[in-house]
């Protein structure tokens, strides 16, 4: 009897604990910050103070394996409740049934009117549903060394022809050892460099990843990139393998005079180069301009145990003031108009270059092939074209084949 009573007490305690656990929700949130100065703990503390009963477990996952981990966690049934997500991953996540539609929640949310125009349209899924809530954005532009252009009496290149001439002039042997030690442009041939190639190729009229890539204009775009490396020698010899760290490192070290990236790297570059560096929209090539819209949103996962709590957390991150604090760490731009208006964390010339580039900003196609394009098809084929293993035409055909599947 005594035993039975003990068992009853223990069972009641367990039931009580379970009901308490139910009342207190936990939101598991995955994000990726490269910056060591991580404000997430403060944001979480602030949110938990405002929302007693909700605990946020925010986990910073390294960027290199972020999507590999996210996809496998979803398949393995251990997905987070909410996560930071990019547009290129949306088709796959939708196909996996991993995302919770949040269109109705956004419509009913006070913060909707405060978001930058058009962001919700840009991040809408192909099926017309809304799964993403924008949290930060960037637009890629051309970084250039103002001091080097001034020294040589050159103007900021506005077209591809001008770009080629300027890049050639900037490629110099300044120490007299017989080989160049400054290169005109730091091209990213490794993963993530598709943005560079796209600015020179997808800008051509009638050319996109899904159409016109094997046309004369499409091939001319890739050939232009290959020629810059192989004929003109305006990229450093390591360009085929260079990734983000290498192109930024070389630019900061004065090994390259121009490169393409976004405002996220501006403060780091200014710290080293000061006023010697400035930025402008990427050049016009083949009748148009194309630059990449670098998006970052948050989403509620369909497997979330408490979707209301997950929504509360992600909408908190895209609300005035919180969004600014979030972006202070990532170095990107806030999606909330009031936060953008009072933005003073980047030198004005880089904010201007971003705003000036917005009209030419594009997203990659919202289809599941885009992940393979970004991760393998583009880097492998670009490297082969740069090293002369395949022609520009063959490279474009490989990418067109992928998108035709």
């Amino acid at each position, binding site marked *: 009897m005594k035993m039975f009573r003990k068992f009853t007490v223990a069972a009641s305690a367990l039931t009580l604990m379970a009901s308490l656990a139910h009342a207190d929700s936990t939101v598991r949130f995955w994000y990726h910050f490269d910056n060591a100065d991580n404000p997430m703990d403060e944001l979480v503390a602030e949110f938990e103070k405002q929302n007693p009963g909700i605990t946020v477990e925010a986990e910073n996952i390294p960027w290199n394996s972020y999507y*590999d981990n996210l*996809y496998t966690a979803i398949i393995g049934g251990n997905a987070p409740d909410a996560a930071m997500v990019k547009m290129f991953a949306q088709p796959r996540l939708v196909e996996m049934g991993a995302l919770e539609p949040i269109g109705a929640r956004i419509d009913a949310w006070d913060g909707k009117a405060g978001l930058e125009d058009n962001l919700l349209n840009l991040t809408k899924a192909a099926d017309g549903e809304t799964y993403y809530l924008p949290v930060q954005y960037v637009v890629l532009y051309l970084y250039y060394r103002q001091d080097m252009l001034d020294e040589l009496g050159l103007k900021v290149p506005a077209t591809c022809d001008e770009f080629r001439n300027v890049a050639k002039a900037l490629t110099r042997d300044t120490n007299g050892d017989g*080989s160049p030690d400054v290169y005109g442009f730091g091209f990213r*041939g490794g993963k993530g460099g598709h943005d560079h190639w796209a600015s020179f190729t997808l800008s051509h009229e009638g050319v996109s990843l899904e159409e016109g890539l094997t046309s004369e204009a499409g091939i001319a775009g890739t050939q232009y990139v290959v020629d810059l490396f192989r004929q003109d020698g305006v990229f450093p010899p390591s360009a085929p393998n260079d990734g983000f760290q290498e192109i930024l490192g070389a630019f900061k070290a004065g090994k390259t005079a121009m490169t393409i990236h976004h405002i996220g790297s501006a403060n780091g570059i200014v710290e080293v180069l000061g006023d010697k560096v400035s930025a402008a929209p990427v050049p016009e090539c083949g009748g148009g301009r194309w630059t990449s819209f670098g998006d970052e949103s948050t989403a509620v996962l369909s497997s979330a145990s408490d979707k209301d709590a997950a929504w509360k957390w992600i909408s908190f991150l895209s609300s005035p003031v919180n969004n600014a604090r979030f972006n202070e760490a990532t170095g990107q731009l806030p999606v909330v108009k009031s936060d953008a208006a009072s933005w003073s964390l980047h030198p004005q010339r880089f904010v201007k270059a971003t705003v000036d580039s917005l009209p030419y900003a594009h997203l990659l196609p919202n289809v599941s092939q885009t992940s393979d394009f970004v991760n393998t098809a583009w880097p492998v*084929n670009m490297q082969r074209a740069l090293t002369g*293993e395949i022609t520009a035409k063959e490279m474009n055909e490989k990418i067109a084949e992928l998108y035709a599947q």
Partner: protein
Amino acid sequence: MTDTTVPDAGPIGRPLGRRVLPYAMLSPAVLVTLAIVFFPMVQTAWMSLHDYVLFRPNHFEFVGLDNFRKALADEVFWISLQHTAIWIGITIPAQVLLGLATALLLNQDFPWRPLARALIIIPWALPSVVIALMWVWIYDSNYGLMNDFLLRLGLIEQAVPWLARPDTALGAIILTLTWQGFPFFAVMILAGLQSIPRSYYEAAAIDGASAFRQFWHITLPGISGVLVTAILLRMIWVANSFDVIFVMTGGGPGYSTYTLPLYAFVKSRTNLDFGYGSALAVLFTLLLMVVVLVYLRRTGKAVSR
């Protein structure tokens, strides 16, 4: 016989218990091995017969040997296979020769010998990722030690982007792995060398044998057992290791440093094509099985001795 050696083997159950006991003792190990080795192997083989792309979890279709046919017609499979053969074919002999030379040196009497023996093990003790990052820096075309060294010696006229050129990238990685792996051979061979009695050499010297003949007729037979086992083991490790390549070049430029395990990894982990990735892994396992069987035969013989 049994009854006389076991003093109190009275009850009927005891011999049965004795028969069952070894299996009972071994079964946890067997179960763990089955769960963590054989189950994933069978699962990989099963997945290789399916069209299974991770982001389409509901389209798990049986396609028979289609993935294997696709692999055999895939240009990248053959490129990767060729690189794997070059990778193993150069790395292992280079590690053996360097290891042998080091072991012979370390077997001599000289001051600070224990320190030299300790230092030699460092490359082997460092994690692969650290080694890969270190060598990426050594090969850097702007700041790397390699270019600086060769330029100063006048062997090259301008810096070479070792990892960004298809004709040098694989060689550069092979050199890295050779450096990482030779201490394993050095230590194994050194152990073998120390088991050869000194009297053999003294007798050979009295008979007038040259240093080379002593090496050929005494040293080499003395270390052959250790050497063959170490080579077989290392072949399996080297064939499977792709972490160094992954960190140093990610397989690039183009496909110039793709090996089969790396290709299977890229297909499965990056492209999420688990069906095709599994087929590549199964094909590679079958190829590697030859080496594994030779190794198992050797270890089997050693145990039965």
